[in-house]
């Protein structure tokens, strides 16, 4: 009887999971895959084939937007790692206990503020009549107000800002687990600061680095607001193309094709990243902090 009860509860718990994953994740993904393979040949007439994909690769604008999005996302990921690592190390290893908790909380606060508010804050700061420009004119450093929005540098700064917390949080939790004795041993054995960093700290922090990079990259590549609001009309971000095809031009076949390509492409980058570092998705992203 106990076994039957166990089976029953397994079924009861498994059903919601299956419904969720099946109806909200798997079938919709198959759905866009299906639509992307459908070519419109007339009113309500469709043919199956890879025509939409051929169109995509035949059109340099689309291709370049995808490549541009990918390169900028990789750049953002690298910058977030370089800027974020010292901060995470400081919080995890150098700050005193009470300050550590405060700093960590401060890191989390912007995390809870909407992307929209953060992008809006940058607009208020950086536009031609914005705070930075006005202050610089007032200080006599520049003679005329400058427009600091709508260029790639601003987009990168804004994206790093949006994603860096997702880099710092996993790094802090991995680094906190590191025993200081490891470092002392490294120094005692004659390692220089750089050697200790390269041979002890980095390998130890690897799961955190990989987790941070994956989340950061996916967030950057999938972001919509920051590139559009800070980059303006010419930001040519790939998610914007998807939106345009779907909502503005109502061309769902092309939009679905773009969606599939973005998903395949980002998954590929993540997969290569995991392979190169010898990590798995579950040990990195799902690690409980």
């Amino acid at each position: 009887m106990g076994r039957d009860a166990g089976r029953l509860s397994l079924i009861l718990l498994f059903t919601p999971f299956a419904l969720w994953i099946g109806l909200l994740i798997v079938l919709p993904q198959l759905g866009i895959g299906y639509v992307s393979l459908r070519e419109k040949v007339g009113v309500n007439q469709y043919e199956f084939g890879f025509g939409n994909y051929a169109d995509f690769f035949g059109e340099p604008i689309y291709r370049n937007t995808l490549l541009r999005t990918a390169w900028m996302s990789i750049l953002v990921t690298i910058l977030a790692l370089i800027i974020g690592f010292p901060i995470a190390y400081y919080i995890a290893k150098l700050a005193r206990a009470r300050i550590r908790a405060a700093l960590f909380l401060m890191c989390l606060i912007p995390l809870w503020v909407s992307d929209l508010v953060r992008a809006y804050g940058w607009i208020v700061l950086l536009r031609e009549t914005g705070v930075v420009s006005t202050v610089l004119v007032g200080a006599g450093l520049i003679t005329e107000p400058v427009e600091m929005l709508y260029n790639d540098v601003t987009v990168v700064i804004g994206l790093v800002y949006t994603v860096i917390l997702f880099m710092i949080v996993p790094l802090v939790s991995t680094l906190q687990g590191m025993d200081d004795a490891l470092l002392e041993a490294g120094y005692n054995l004659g390692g220089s600061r750089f050697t200790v960093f390269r041979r002890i700290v980095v390998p130890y922090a690897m799961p955190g680095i990989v987790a941070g990079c994956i989340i950061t990259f996916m967030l950057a590549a999938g972001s919509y607001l920051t590139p559009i609001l800070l980059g303006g009309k010419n930001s040519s971000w790939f998610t914007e193309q998807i939106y345009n095809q779907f909502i503005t031009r109502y061309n769902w076949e092309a939009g679905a094709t773009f969606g599939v390509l973005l998903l395949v492409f980002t998954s590929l980058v993540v997969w290569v990243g995991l392979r190169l570092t010898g990590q798995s998705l579950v040990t990195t992203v799902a690690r409980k902090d």
Partner: protein
Amino acid sequence: MQVSGNLLWIYRVYVLIFFLYLVAPLCAAGVFAFNDSLFPSLPWRGFTLDWFFSPSEPKLGLFHDDRLLRGIGNSLFIGVIVATIATALGTCNAFLFVRKTFRFKPLLYVMMVVPLVIPGVILGISILVFASMIANFFDSTLGLFVTWLRPGIPLIVLGQCSFLTTITSLVIAARLQKFDISLEEAALNLGASRPRVLLTVTFPFLFPALFSAFVVAFLVSFENFNTTLMLVGSDAPLTITMYDRMVKVGSTPVLNAVSVVLMLGSGLLALASVVAQRPQSAQ
């Protein structure tokens, strides 16, 4: 690492600059809600609360702006429903993966985590496409109009639940894993029924995690933009309304006022969730 005095100071300055970078845009978004000017920019023209409370144009305050208020209402409504569903599903998933053994468990666990790494825009369009396919099917075969499968609040709820359930599952599973199963066995041995054990032993232990899962899901839902953008119908939540205003009207201080309200609200909720989690870290 042993760091010498000077270097430590340079390091500290770096950390300080970083935190200034973190708060600068938030301050800029917040401060100009109180500037008595028609534009969110310098010079400072004195303190005012008009952008919150003024009942008339040109400085129509947030609390008299019907569209923004409707946006807040929609966001609250969606947030509560999404958080409830995601927490309920997350609880089921937590029990499933922590307590049960079944075939393909590692593979299915990966499936549970995957929604976190799918870009929000793609979750949005995939659910839009799938729902439309079902709606079209009903339309063409049965002649039924299924309006809730067209863009609107029900689809937004489904879209947000699709990835928030992963987050709530992970939060609740982490707590459930720490639960000492002998407590349940003791209660069972003492004659309590299964449901009673769940209600009086297991759920009280899980409560902090359930609470913070709910709060996190609510906050993320309230702030979500990417997934929502693809699924929005006529009842737009606040983020969409604010974005619309930003693109069509340009930046006005009323948007700063919205930002202040958003920051205060999410700050308080995040604090509540941290406080609820506190005893857990002490154990």
